[in-house]
């Protein structure tokens, strides 16, 4: 009992004598070359065949190395080799297998072959799946429950091994895309292109059903369109011509996975302990995942087997002035360890950033006003408080569209009739997107002038980039056309003052959106207000996401609010959202507006297989003009991402397509220590005041008690 009392006393003593502080990390981590960051949602998938969200890519991009990557600094986005020796050149073949020239007409191309050579000498991170005994047998491939009594994490395995990366690992991973148990999100799309992927999936489904094996050795099941040429070369054969395939080769879906690792992870005793390939990736990249507790912490550490890479020698215009080329030519990575802590709530997340315990932070609406002010010319600038702390604001446009779509199958707002087109144009002018961004997104967005956001080939800045049907170019700026123009367009469309000129009935439109919670009410009111400017009644129908999707699939929506985030930085990935054969209702594609225009479709087919250049740009201009004129979308906005960085974090340049920036970043940890010391000095007088209050109350209580006892004794006597 005495020892317990002593311990409690010591803890209390330590607490009030300064052994306690607000540092959420152990003292041993201070002064080290560590990046401290956070993640806000539980990371579900780290399997490169399954992961698809930016929160997952943030981790696996540091571990897995696909054949290609994006240049960190160059804009527009440029592909460069990563584990490949060079960016592969496509070879075109006709139906008889004859080689075709580069400029062969698309119709003559039967299939395309990409032959990819990989770098020699790349080794995997140390991993127990590779560990072998003296006889060369795998040590941990036949584990029993008893052998795992002390194993709770991957790092608990005593022995590890490695081996050289070979071409078969890339082929193995492509086969994994067709694995029925993995459910890769790009299987559907890739099975249209990679020859034999669909057949492989059918075969594997059959095997899975009949044999019910823990592990299906994919090496035993050939994939017709993908073959190993030699240890350092493999070939992928795709149907027809698909130049955008190169972008996919820069995604973790095409990164190598060693069969030994999958064999190792397929053991039931490990699955029972949640040690799976989904939780513990095995890669060749600059970092390896050493702690994966998705409930509170993920740790990446420098991969001691990393083959080496150098910081880029050249960048985009202005990068040198920003100091982004200061480390040019130096070996990567700079940071030894990255610790990511689960932080769901914005208040502690933001405070830890200000206290110097996170190196960077994104801005939520809760702390927007504390961090940023919007200047008279609508630019976001840091507040004085942030500037005093040496914090920097970095903004970037995401390759994303948020838009109001018009269902082109709808009898009122859809169709090719001139009246419907004018109605769509009128609504597009009335909906003040600038105000929407300002009110609901703290100014974090750029009004869209068409389908292509900044950084995508075909996007135009300034007067040339303005949508002339919605905006006027006034004093060097795009200005939304006055509401009077919208009203006259509406009258031309047959709805003067918002009433059908034939029936006299008021025009009632329906907007389908997701959500519908109390927070959305003000937004819905704003939507109604916008159309009320034209005397149109807008009924907002809010549903959950699944019902919303169903409506879209059935074509039951009239106007809808939706978004699109690009897979890769090519205009094809945006313009295909208007391609007829990609219509949602008819073909189950991503063209949610079900827009169909023969001229546009013909141009799209021509454009999608072209290389970037003048000829392609001309076609893109024509396509953009068609959709601007027909207005199947009310062009919404491209979101702007604001991130805050302390001045000890160097080489930070946002790259929305590539989340492997960690290897380029550098930390000045001494500066961080100084900051933490400066901005974490306690203010203790309120605590003293509270303690004084407690003492006063106690004294009063004791006096009262004594008086009462005295009176009681007096009565007894």
């Amino acid at each position, binding site marked *: 009992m005495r020892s317990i009392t002593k311990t409690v006393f010591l*803890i209390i003593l330590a*607490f009030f004598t300064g052994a*306690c*502080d*607000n*540092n*959420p990390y*152990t003292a041993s981590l201070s002064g080290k070359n560590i990046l401290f960051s956070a993640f806000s949602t*539980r990371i*579900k998938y780290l399997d490169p065949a399954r992961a*698809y*969200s930016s929160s997952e890519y943030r981790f696996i991009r540091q571990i897995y190395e696909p054949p290609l990557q994006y240049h960190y600094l160059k804009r527009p986005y440029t592909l460069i080799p990563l584990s490949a020796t060079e960016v592969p050149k496509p070879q075109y073949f006709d139906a008889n297998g004859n080689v075709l020239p580069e400029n062969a007409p698309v119709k003559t191309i039967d299939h395309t072959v990409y032959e990819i050579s990989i770098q020699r000498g790349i080794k995997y991170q140390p991993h127990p799946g590779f560990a072998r005994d003296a006889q060369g047998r795998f040590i941990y491939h036949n584990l029993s429950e008893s052998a795992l009594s002390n194993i709770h994490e991957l790092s608990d395995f005593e022995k590890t091994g490695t081996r050289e990366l070979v071409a078969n690992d890339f082929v193995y991973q492509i086969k994994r895309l067709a694995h*029925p148990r993995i*459910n890769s*999100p*790009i*299987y*559907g*799309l890739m099975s249209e292109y990679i020859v034999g992927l669909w057949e492989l999936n059918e075969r594997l*489904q059959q095997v899975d059903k009949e044999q019910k094996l823990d592990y299906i050795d994919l090496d035993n099941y050939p994939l017709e369109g993908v073959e190993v040429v030699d240890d350092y070369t493999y070939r992928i054969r795709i149907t027809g011509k698909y130049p955008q395939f190169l972008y996919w080769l820069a995604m973790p879906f095409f990164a190598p996975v060693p069969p030994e690792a999958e064999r190792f992870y397929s053991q039931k005793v490990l*699955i*029972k*302990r*949640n040690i*799976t390939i*989904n*939780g513990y990736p095995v890669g060749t990249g600059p970092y390896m995942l050493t702690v994966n*507790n998705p*409930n*509170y912490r993920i740790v990446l550490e420098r991969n001691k087997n990393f083959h080496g890479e150098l910081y880029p020698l050249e960048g985009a215009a202005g990068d040198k002035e920003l100091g982004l080329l200061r480390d040019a030519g130096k070996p990567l990575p700079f940071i030894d360890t990255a610790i990511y*802590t*689960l*932080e*769901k*709530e914005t*208040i*502690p997340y933001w*405070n*830890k950033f200000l*206290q110097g315990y996170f190196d960077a932070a994104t801005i939520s609406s809760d702390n927007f006003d504390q961090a940023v002010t919007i200047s008279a010319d609508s630019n976001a600038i840091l507040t004085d408080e942030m500037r005093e702390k040496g914090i920097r604001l970095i903004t970037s446009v995401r390759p994303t569209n948020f838009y109001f779509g018009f269902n082109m199958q709808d009898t009122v707002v859809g169709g090719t009739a001139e009246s419907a087109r004018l109605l769509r144009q009128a609504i597009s002018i009335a909906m003040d997107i600038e105000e929407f961004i300002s009110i609901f997104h703290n100014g974090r967005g750029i009004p869209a002038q068409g389908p292509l956001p900044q950084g995508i080939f075909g996007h135009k800045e300034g007067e040339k980039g303005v949508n002339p049907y919605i905006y006027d170019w006034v004093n060097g700026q795009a200005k939304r056309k006055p509401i009077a123009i919208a009203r006259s367009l509406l009258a031309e469309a047959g709805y003067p003052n918002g009433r059908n000129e034939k029936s006299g009935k008021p025009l009632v439109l329906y907007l389908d959106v997701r959500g519908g919670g109390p927070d959305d009410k003000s937004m819905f009111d704003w939507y109604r207000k916008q159309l009320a400017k034209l005397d149109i009644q807008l009924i907002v129908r809010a549903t959950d*996401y*699944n019902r919303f*999707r169903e409506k879209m699939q059935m074509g039951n929506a009239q106007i809808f609010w939706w978004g699109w985030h690009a*897979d890769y930085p090519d205009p094809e990935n945006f313009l295909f959202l208007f391609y007829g054969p990609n219509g949602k209702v008819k073909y189950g594609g991503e063209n949610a507006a079900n827009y169909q225009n023969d001229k546009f479709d013909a141009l799209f087919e021509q454009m999608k297989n072209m290389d970037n250049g003048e000829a392609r740009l001309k076609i893109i201009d024509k396509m953009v003009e068609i959709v601007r004129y027909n207005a199947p979308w009310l062009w919404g906005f491209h979101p702007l991402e604001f991130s805050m960085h302390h001045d000890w974090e160097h080489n930070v340049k946002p790259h929305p397509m590539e989340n492997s920036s960690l290897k380029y970043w550098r930390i000045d940890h001494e500066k961080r220590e100084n900051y933490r010391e400066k901005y*974490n*000095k*306690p*203010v*203790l007088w*309120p*605590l003293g005041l509270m303690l004084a209050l407690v003492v006063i*109350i106690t004294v*009063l*209580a004791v006096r*009262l*008690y004594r008086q*009462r*006892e005295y009176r*009681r004794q007096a009565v*007894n006597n």
Partner: protein
Amino acid sequence: MFNYILRRLAYALPILLGVNFITFALFFMVITPDDMARLHLGDKHITQEQTKQWKHERGYDRPLFINSAHQDIEVIKDTIFYQKSVRLFFLDFGTSDADRRDINYDISQRVWPSIAIAVPTFVVGLLVNITMAMLLVFFRGTQLDTMAVVMTVILMSISSLFYIIAGQFLMSKLWHLTPISGYELGFDAWRFLILPVVIGVISGMGAGTRWYRSIFFEEINRDYVRTARAKGVPELKVLFRHVLRNAMVPILTGVVVVIPALFMGSLIMETFFAIPGLGSYTIEAIQSYDFAIVRSMVFLGSVLYIIGLVLTDISYTWVDPRVRLS
């Protein structure tokens, strides 16, 4: 008593089945297996075949309650409800719908942070509330009592979120005494537990103190108290030795029943302080429509609540020898 416990446990079976049925029905009224598949597989490039495969892998491709494709007992057995429910009674929770993690393993890992935060909050809170209530009874009728009662009403009226935000501001931002949030495994966890425990105790003080104060007030006018006073026993001794012991039955009613539920963690505290316990596990599962985890946690919660009720009954016999369970 043994027979009584057996009987109570037998009663528990239909209750658990009912709870499971209601959870199942409510969940599937909101979201169908197809919806779940779409939500988990994501937005882009997903084929109907993949949706089917997802459901098949998780056993959601069966009918919900009745399988008319069969004739015999399989009509009931080859359904989602049966397949998903039976295993629960053997505490085999299977794998999560989203990332196929073993739920039993996750529970075994996450229960400790939940206990680490819930037990100190409960024990310290109980001691503080009883002591405060005793002191209020001791100072009954004085200005101190009036002030304290007003204070407890104020404490009760404030939202728990306010306590969290104010606590984080004072303890971490102003006084720099504890980290604002987070968790560390092992003994280092104590630094992260102080703030949520202090907030948990203070936020529960208003309601707790008033509740115990009312219990003690009922006892304070009984004959045995008058007798003790008449014999010259000091007031503090009367309260803490005699009144407290005799007020144990109503105290236990409220206390013992929640002890097993402490394992389930605190939904709000764990989420706000990023503590990887079972409370935040449940919240995450609800947010991500992971029915396998939600079902498991609701079932576990029901089991623990029933255990709490049985323990309460048993504890009556311990504090009051007149009570007999039959």
